C-alpha cells in the first residue's frame, strides 16, 4: 500500500515547482516515487529516503581526520560556545532551509554580533547591488506565462539549471493571452556557448565571454534607434544586434531572464545595471520586465527575512550591535580572504564546494560548524557536522520563489528517527547562547 501526496514543493532551485506528486510507503517513512519533478528534484527526493547514506547524528572531527559521533546536545553546546566566544563569527548559508529557521538564526546572530550572509554572495549578490542602484521592473512568473511573447535568456542556461522553467513559465505554457504557447513566442539566447537552451531559441548571440556589458549597452542604443559604431560588438555582428533589438521592440510583453553569465563575470553588478536599464528603456516602447534566475530554492527567502528584520538582503554585519551593509567589505568571501572572522557557522549551503578554494582553506582553519543533511566538502572540513531533516521533504516551512512569491513547503515523510530539524537545532542554540550571555 502506498500514500500519495500532491502539490508538493521541490526544494532545489528558484523555479520552486509546487506541483510535484510524491508517493510514499504506507507509514509515510520512505519515498517510493516522484512525479513531475525534473531529474535533479527527483534525485533529491529519492536520495533522501536512502537511509544507508544518511548521517543521522552529529559528528565531531578528530585529529586524524575521522569523525566521532556526538549527541545533539553536545553539538548545540559546541555551536553556542563557538558563537559566543568569537569576536566576529560568520553565519553563512541559509538558502536551503525555510524562513522559520532563518529567523531563529538571525536572533542568534543579533545576540552574538555576527555576520549574516546567504548564497547570493556567490550567485545574485551583484544583482542585488545593481537593483540598489537602478531599481528593477519585474513581474511574477504567471505574468510571463499569460502575456509574454518575447523571451531573452541572457547568461543563463535553464535547460541545465532550472530544468522545468521553460515548460512551466517561460517558453511552452499556453496562458490566458498566449494560447499558441511557444509558437507565438520569440526567444533570444545570449551566451558564449551554444547551450542546450540556445538550441530552442530563435536567435543565439554568441557573445564573447566577459564582454556582455558592451553588448547590453549596444542593445540599449539599438532599442533607442541610435547608431552603433563598430562592426562587431562583443563578438556579435552589428546587424544581429539591430535585428535582435527590433525583435524585442516589436513584442507586446517581453521578459529578460538572466543568470551567472552576467553576475559572475567581469563587470559584475554593472552588467546587471545595464540589463535592468535596457529593460527600463524597452518600457518606453512596449512592456518589458526582468527576472533574476535565483539559484537555491530559498535564497530569495533569506533575502526577504534579512530585509524585513534588518533592512538589507545579504552580506549583513551585526558585529557592532546595529546592522551594516557593504558587500565588498562585509561579504563572506571578502572577510574570509582578509582572515577577519574567527568562527564559521554554515547552514543550508555548501561553501566547501562553491567558494574559491582560498576561502575554503580559511574555513578549515577556523572553529566551524556545518548544518547539512548531506555529506559535503563543507561538512568534511568543518569541526562539527550536524545533520538535520530535509526541508520540504521531512519538514515544511515557507520558501520564496525567484519572483519573490512565497510558497509553503510541506512535510512529505518522517525524518529518520531522532533527527532534529534546522529550527529545533537553532532554537536549542539560541537558548544556550542566551544562558551563556547572561553569565
Amino acid at each position, binding site marked *: 500500500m502506498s500514500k500519495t501526496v500532491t502539490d508538493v514543493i521541490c526544494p*532545489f532551485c528558484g523555479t520552486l515547482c509546487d506541483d510535484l506528486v510524491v508517493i510514499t510507503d504506507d507509514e509515510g517513512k520512505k519515498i517510493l516515487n516522484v512525479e513531475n519533478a*525534473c*531529474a*535533479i528534484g527527483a*534525485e*533529491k527526493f529519492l*536520495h533522501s529516503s536512502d537511509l544507508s*547514506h544518511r548521517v543521522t547524528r552529529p559528528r565531531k572531527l578528530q585529529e586524524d*581526520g575521522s569523525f566521532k559521533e556526538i549527541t545533539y546536545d553536545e553539538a548545540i553546546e559546541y555551536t553556542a560556545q563557538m558563537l559566543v566566544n568569537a569576536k566576529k563569527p560568520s553565519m553563512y548559508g541559509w538558502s536551503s532551509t525555510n524562513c522559520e529557521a532563518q529567523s531563529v538564526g538571525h536572533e542568534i546572530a543579533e545576540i552574538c554580533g555576527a555576520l549574516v550572509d546567504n548564497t547570493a*554572495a*556567490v550567485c545574485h*549578490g*551583484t544583482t542585488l547591488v545593481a537593483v540598489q542602484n537602478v531599481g528593477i521592473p519585474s513581474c511574477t512568473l504567471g505574468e510571463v506565462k499569460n502575456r509574454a511573447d518575447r523571451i531573452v535568456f541572457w547568461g543563463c*542556461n535553464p*535547460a*541545465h*539549471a532550472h*530544468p522545468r522553467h521553460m515548460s512551466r513559465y517561460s517558453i511552452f505554457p499556453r496562458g490566458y493571452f498566449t494560447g499558441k504557447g511557444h509558437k507565438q513566442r520569440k526567444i533570444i539566447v545570449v551566451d*558564449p*556557448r*551554444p*547551450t*542546450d537552451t*540556445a538550441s530552442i531559441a530563435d536567435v543565439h548571440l*554568441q557573445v564573447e*565571454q*566577459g564582454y556582455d556589458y558592451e553588448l547590453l549597452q549596444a542593445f540599449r542604443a539599438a532599442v533607442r534607434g541610435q547608431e552603433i559604431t563598430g562592426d562587431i560588438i562583443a563578438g556579435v555582428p552589428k546587424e544581429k544586434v539591430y535585428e535582435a533589438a527590433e525583435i524585442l521592440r516589436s513584442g507586446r510583453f517581453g521578459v529578460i531572464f538572466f543568470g*551567472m*553569465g552576467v553576475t*559572475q*563575470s*567581469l563587470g*559584475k*553588478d554593472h552588467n546587471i545595471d545595464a540589463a535592468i536599464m535596457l529593460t527600463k528603456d524597452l518600457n518606453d516602447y512596449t512592456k518589458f520586465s526582468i527576472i533574476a534566475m535565483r539559484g537555491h530554492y530559498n535564497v530569495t527567502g533569506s533575502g526577504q527575512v534579512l530585509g524585513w528584520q534588518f533592512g538589507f538582503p545579504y552580506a549583513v554585519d551585526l558585529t557592532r550591535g546595529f546592522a551594516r551593509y557593504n*558587500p*565588498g*567589505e*562585509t*561579504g563572506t*568571501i*571578502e572577510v574570509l*580572504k582578509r582572515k577577519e572572522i574567527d568562527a564559521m557557522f554554515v547552514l543550508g549551503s*555548501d561553501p*566547501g*564546494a*562553491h*567558494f*574559491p*578554494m*582560498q*576561502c*575554503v582553506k580559511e*574555513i*578549515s582553519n577556523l572553529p566551524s560548524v556545518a548544518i547539512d543533511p*548531506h*555529506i*559535503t*566538502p563543507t561538512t*568534511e*572540513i568543518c569541526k562539527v557536522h550536524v545533520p538535520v531533516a530535509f526541508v520540504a521533504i521531512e519538514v515544511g516551512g515557507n520558501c520564496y520563489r525567484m519572483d519573490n512569491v512565497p510558497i509553503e513547503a510541506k512535510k512529505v515523510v518522517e525524518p529518520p528517527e531522532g533527527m532534529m530539524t534546522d529550527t529545533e537545532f537553532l532554537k536549542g542554540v539560541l537558548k544556550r547562547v542566551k544562558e551563556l550571555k547572561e553569565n
Partner: protein
Amino acid sequence: MSTITINLISGRTIQQGVSMEGGKETDKYMKACGIIEIDDSDFKRLGIMKNTNVKVKSQHGEVVVKAIEATQGPHPGVGFIPMGPWANSVTNPETYSTGMPTFKGVIITIEPAETEKVLNSIELVRAKCWGDN
C-alpha cells in the same frame, strides 16, 4: 602534446545537479564535475586524446580533471568546468570590491596529465585545505 592557454568558465549542468543530490562524496559527482569541457579545436592544440586527464592551472591554484569534448559547443578558446571544488581550485577569488568572486572568465593553462588521478571531492578539498598546496 603541449600546454595551451584558454578562458575558463564554470556553471551548472544537469549531471552536476543530479549527482550532487545523490551525494557529493560519490564517484558519480566526481565524474560529473571533475571534468573540463574543451572545444575540438582546443583538443587539437593540446594534442591529446579525449577523455584523458589534464592539469588545469591558473594564478590561483591547480587541479587535475578529465578533459572531455564540449557538450554544448562549439566554443573555441573557452573551457567549461561544472561548478564545484574542481572548478573552484582554479577560479579567481578576486571580487573587485563587489564581494562576488570571478567564477567566469579566468585565464588558465591546460597541460596533459594522463598519469595523474582526478580526486574525489572530499579528497580534493581536504588536500587543498590540510595538504601542502
